[in-house]
């Protein structure tokens, strides 16, 4: 627009004598400033209370200074050590002096916890040696090994060398069922400790099943709602919207009441005679329960986008296909269904994105095989207190979700997201 103005520059001026081009630019600038200043407060708020905290969390997945903070001398010596030669007197001397301080400051537990994450089973080695550190005399290598011969094991020193590096790939390695070592780089984790990759797959599998079920159940309902007269469909819409507006915990509670072994469904089955009283079905506290409850909770997120797409498809298309000789099935598959693909994409992606990060429902009804990766993140946050590992697992999950979100925005556009 401004380009076309340049051609006749100088010729047109505004009422106050300034060139129109300049005036226009000023006006545009002003309205741009106005628009930006409306958005800035929320943007700043979301940045400060949401985006930055998440970045700070992600940072913890690769940065952990627990060890180096409390063992300054040892860290210095470990950095100088190549990790291959037998540890010498200087390392042992630094160890003893740091353990003494740590014992006095009550920080020994933090050091031991950090090393124990890298090399399990060494926690008490640190705490017990720290208790005796005050009495140890030079030469330290000899006296330390005398208190506990595990100190002669070079693997412990290598583990310490790893933990002394603040910037570390080892939590991401663990999150992908691997281990990072000084001498061999990345290696696969001991087979009976491999769990996270499997959990990621299971999360994807459950999310995909939930998405598939939502599509299977949501499609017919959305079609019915879109083709019924408005008055009737509005009434039926309440049945979709009421669950949508009802508390997640209420719905989860309801499913527990229905599915548990002394619950409504099992009682009904026993009363009808489908099953005996002592062989009731296990419908909850397992993967089945997770999938049923999650499908119920996410179904409205599938129905609503499908419905809004289907409502825009004129019924005359189907009639035209029929009049041209198509069977009802052919007309539906070749004429109607292709037009609903945007709705399927929107609903499916939304359900998948929400399912992949689910936490509450699996935690309450998931039992042992219905847990998702979010539950493992919460476990490391709240129980094992390995916060860096939680951050690494969260980082992988977040990357996956953001990728899906980006696809959603490219394909469907977030402006087109509708509620109710």
């Amino acid at each position, binding site marked *: 627009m401004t380009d076309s103005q340049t051609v006749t520059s100088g010729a047109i001026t505004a009422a106050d004598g300034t060139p129109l081009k300049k005036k226009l630019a000023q006006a545009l600038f002003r309205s741009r400033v106005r628009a930006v200043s409306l958005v800035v407060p929320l943007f700043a708020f979301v940045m400060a209370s949401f985006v930055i905290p998440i970045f700070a969390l992600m940072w913890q997945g690769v940065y952990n200074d627990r060890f180096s903070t409390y063992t300054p001398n040892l860290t210095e010596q470990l950095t100088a050590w190549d990790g291959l030669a037998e540890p010498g007197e200087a390392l042992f001397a630094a160890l003893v002096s740091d353990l003494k301080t740590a014992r006095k*400051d*009550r*920080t*020994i*537990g*933090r050091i*031991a*916890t950090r090393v*124990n*994450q890298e090399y*399990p*089973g*060494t*926690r*008490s*080695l640190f*705490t017990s040696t720290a208790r005796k550190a005050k009495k140890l005399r030079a030469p330290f290598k000899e006296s330390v090994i005398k208190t506990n011969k595990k100190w002669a094991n070079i693997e412990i020193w290598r583990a310490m060398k790893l933990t002394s590096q603040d910037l570390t790939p080892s939590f991401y390695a663990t999150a992908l069922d691997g281990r990072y070592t000084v001498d061999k780089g990345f290696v696969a984790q001991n087979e*009976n*400790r*491999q*769990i996270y990759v*499997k*959990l990621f797959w*299971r999360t994807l599998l459950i999310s995909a099943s939930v998405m598939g079920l939502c599509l299977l159940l949501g499609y017919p309902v959305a079609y019915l709602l879109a083709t019924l007269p408005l008055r009737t469909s509005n009434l039926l819409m309440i049945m979709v919207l009421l669950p949508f507006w009802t508390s997640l915990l209420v719905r989860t509670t309801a499913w527990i009441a229905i599915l*548990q*072994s*002394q619950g409504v469904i099992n009682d009904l089955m026993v009363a009808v005679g489908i099953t005996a009283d002592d062989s009731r079905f296990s419908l909850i*506290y397992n993967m089945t329960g997770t999938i049923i409850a999650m499908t119920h909770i996410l179904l409205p997120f599938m129905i609503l986008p499908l419905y809004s797409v289907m409502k825009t498809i004129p019924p005359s298309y189907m009639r035209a296909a029929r009049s041209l000789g198509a069977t009802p099935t052919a007309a539906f598959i070749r004429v109607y269904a292709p037009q609903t693909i945007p709705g399927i994409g929107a609903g499916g992606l939304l359900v998948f994105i929400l399912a992949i990060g689910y936490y509450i429902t699996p935690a309450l009804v998931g*039992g*042992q*095989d219905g*847990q998702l990766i979010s539950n*493992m993140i919460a*476990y490391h*946050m*709240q*129980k*094992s*207190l*390995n916060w860096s590992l939680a951050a690494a697992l969260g980082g992988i999950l977040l990357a996956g979700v953001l990728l899906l979100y980006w696809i959603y925005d490219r394909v469907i556009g977030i402006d087109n997201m509708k509620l109710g």
Partner: protein
Amino acid sequence: MSGLTKKLIAIAGASVFVGSTAVAADLTVVSWGGAYTKSQVEAYHKPWMAKTGKTIVSEDYGGGIAEIKAQVESGNVTWDVVDVELSDAIRACDEGLLEPIDHSTLPPAPDGTPATEDFLPGTLHDCAVANIVWSSVYAYDSSKVRNWNAPKTMADFFDTKAFPGKRGMRKSPKVTMEFALIADGVPTSEVYDVLGTEEGIARAFAKLDTIKEDVVWWEAGAQPPQLLADGEVVFSTAWNGRVFNAKNAEGQPFEMVWDGQIYDLDLFVIPKGSKNKEAALDFVAFSTATEQLAAQASWISYGPARASSEARIGTFHSDSSIKMADHMPTAAANFKNALQNDFEFWADNADQLNERFNAWLAK
């Protein structure tokens, strides 16, 4: 429109008022909930409040040191006294999350024995004072198990052929793995040596594999009696006091099997930076006096941590025909095949075994 805005503002104003009148207490004491917290409220909280005129708010939690750590590290400590397991007390103390407790401030026994000698060995620590000895056992619903076929040993719990039915177990490797080894024939004195080896771990998991299909996992101590009462399970591992109370206070038909019991301590700790440290110290000293510990034992069947309290254990508060001393984990009849939880073993191996346990669960 403006009417609506005004109303919204009025609602907001009203709720600001509502929110600001939140309870202010002189002391927040955190424990495990249910019958156990009730016993503490009756034996410790009420007399302490009567003595000092201060108020106590009692909160429930599910164990672990995550909350303490979060509070201490954020500098916003809202818990004053917490009832924790031994391994957690040691770990939190090592990490500098707890206030040290001077043992000389603890009251002596009525006969003048100093506290340091009166407390049972291993019950006093730098930052923690034990109040009870409790035990993990298993219980069953006697209305669903025929008398001649009642389980008697830990091995019976793992024998689904002779004792069919679902089993409840705690969703944690701690205690669960020890039970598996005991059931597999490992003598209690060797359990931790075996569990320290790779073969021992494999052996425990192999034993657990035999009942995996029949297990319902529980997480909170209040769940096992509930699972038994609801008929979700026929057998369940549980904390002995909870089963005792379900049986004697609620009349549930539960029986306990003491064989292979694993006992542990519960201790009082004070998070570092507690805003009511003086009151907290006073509460801990008051509650762990001979009289109070003995009084608690009449509310729940957990053993007092002081030698001088044992002689004073009376009868159940609501039924004087029940002698509480017979139901303690440490009573001679119950103590025949018992194992003490090794806090050091679990401090070293909890991370690793949790991971393997979770991997095993997910298999």
